[in-house]
């Protein structure tokens, strides 16, 4: 019991790191993903293709590889080469990667909205921007809540990848103790922490879904 309590301190510190990566990634990747989705369906074909290529690249290579690239290789790339400390490097990789996934979810959601909604708005005098803001996106949110919920929960677990940059997230903190103390207890506590985080998310998304359930389509 005492041992269990003694693991809590380091594990909570690890959780703080995990949560930071998680929150900052969400805050950055959701708006970025929305922008990418809007560019992807824009009438400028070239822009759409570029975004498409970007999404293909980000979804087609491992997130860990992207993170290692940004941390170790980016400094040597001419012109855009910068050397980022570990936390910013991790965040940039996560945000760029998750933006690609969110972009695909948003795009599919936007394209699932019936053309009649655009026409209904247009004959009332809405501009494209007003149509998107007031009519299309509010309906998209309801439709994409389940996949966004999935993606968000995956992100909680994906944060553990930052161990490759030697950052002390929840999983790495647990592993350190397991190796030092020859017991698997820290792993079990860490699992409980992950479960707790995903539980809160699941619960939050369920509430959102309920809120959007007031109307049917």
């Amino acid at each position: 019991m005492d041992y269990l309590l003694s693991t809590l301190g380091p594990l909570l510190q690890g959780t703080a790191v995990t949560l930071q990566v998680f929150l900052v990634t969400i805050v950055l990747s959701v708006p970025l993903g929305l922008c990418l989705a809007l560019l992807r369906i824009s009438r400028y074909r070239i822009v759409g293709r570029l975004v498409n290529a970007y999404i293909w690249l980000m979804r087609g290579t491992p997130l860990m590889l992207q993170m290692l690239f940004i941390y170790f290789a980016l400094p040597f790339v001419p012109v855009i080469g910068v050397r980022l400390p570990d936390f910013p490097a991790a965040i940039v990789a996560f945000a760029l990667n998750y933006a690609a996934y969110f972009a695909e979810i948003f795009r599919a959601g936007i394209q699932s909205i019936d053309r009649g909604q655009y026409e209904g708005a247009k004959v009332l005098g809405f501009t494209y921007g007003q149509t998107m803001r007031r009519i299309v996106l509010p309906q998209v949110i309801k439709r994409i809540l389940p996949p966004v919920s999935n993606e968000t929960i995956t992100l909680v677990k994906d944060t553990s990848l930052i161990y490759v940059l030697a950052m002390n997230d929840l999983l790495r903190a647990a592993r350190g103790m397991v190796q030092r103390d020859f017991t698997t207890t820290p792993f079990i506590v860490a699992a409980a922490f992950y479960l707790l985080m995903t539980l809160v998310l699941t619960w939050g998304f369920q509430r959102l879904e309920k809120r959007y359930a007031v109307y049917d389509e």
Partner: protein
Amino acid sequence: MIHADNLHKRFGSVEVLKGVSLSMQKGEVIAMIGPSGSGKSTFLRCLNHLELINRGQIAIEGEVMARTDEQGHCHYMPDADVRRICRKMGMVFQQFNLFPHLTVLQNIIEAPMTVKGIKRDEIIPKAEELLHKVGLAAKRDSYPARLSGGQKQRVAIARALAMEPDIMLFDEPTSALDPELTGEVLRTMRQLAEEHMTMLVVTHEMAFAREVASRVIFMDHGLILEERPAEELFADPQHPRTREFLRNML
């Protein structure tokens, strides 16, 4: 009110409008009839910029929205002008196109607030009045999914009227409805006509066309074949195609 001159519209290589002209005066109610695929919807959609014409001229209340130069190139006014001109027309669709995430009242006030910048408190009494007029005051806070087809269409009419258009375009407003629900929608439209709203109605309801329209237009294969006062056209159709069409309808 509406001056459409020699409208041509192609979808790919298929010419759907082959030179359609229409002049409409204030307060007129025109019914447009014709077989499926003859281009009636396309014509309406060209009038309010849901489709772009390839040739011809469109002017609404004296303002040119699209015109064609000597070389045969069609030009539209800048977007903002087109939007302003099109706002003089309201449109009601066969499929209603209500906004499912908004209540009946919100459906009606959304455009006046967002497009015209009218304050919520100012527009709500007006919206309630419109709802009363179409007989749906009790449905104020319902979502569209809870309404019958006839009720949806009446909300759609109220929504269009809330923007205070000078002209109303109807594209088969009762075709998606069960027969027993068409009456309530036609009654609402009849009432609008009695208030001297300028209306262009594409319809398969011959009784409505005959009784409410001042003029009836028969369209076939992208051309207007006959255009006459309602009682004349129904009593004595001139064109063989009109005769055939009416025989099949009645």
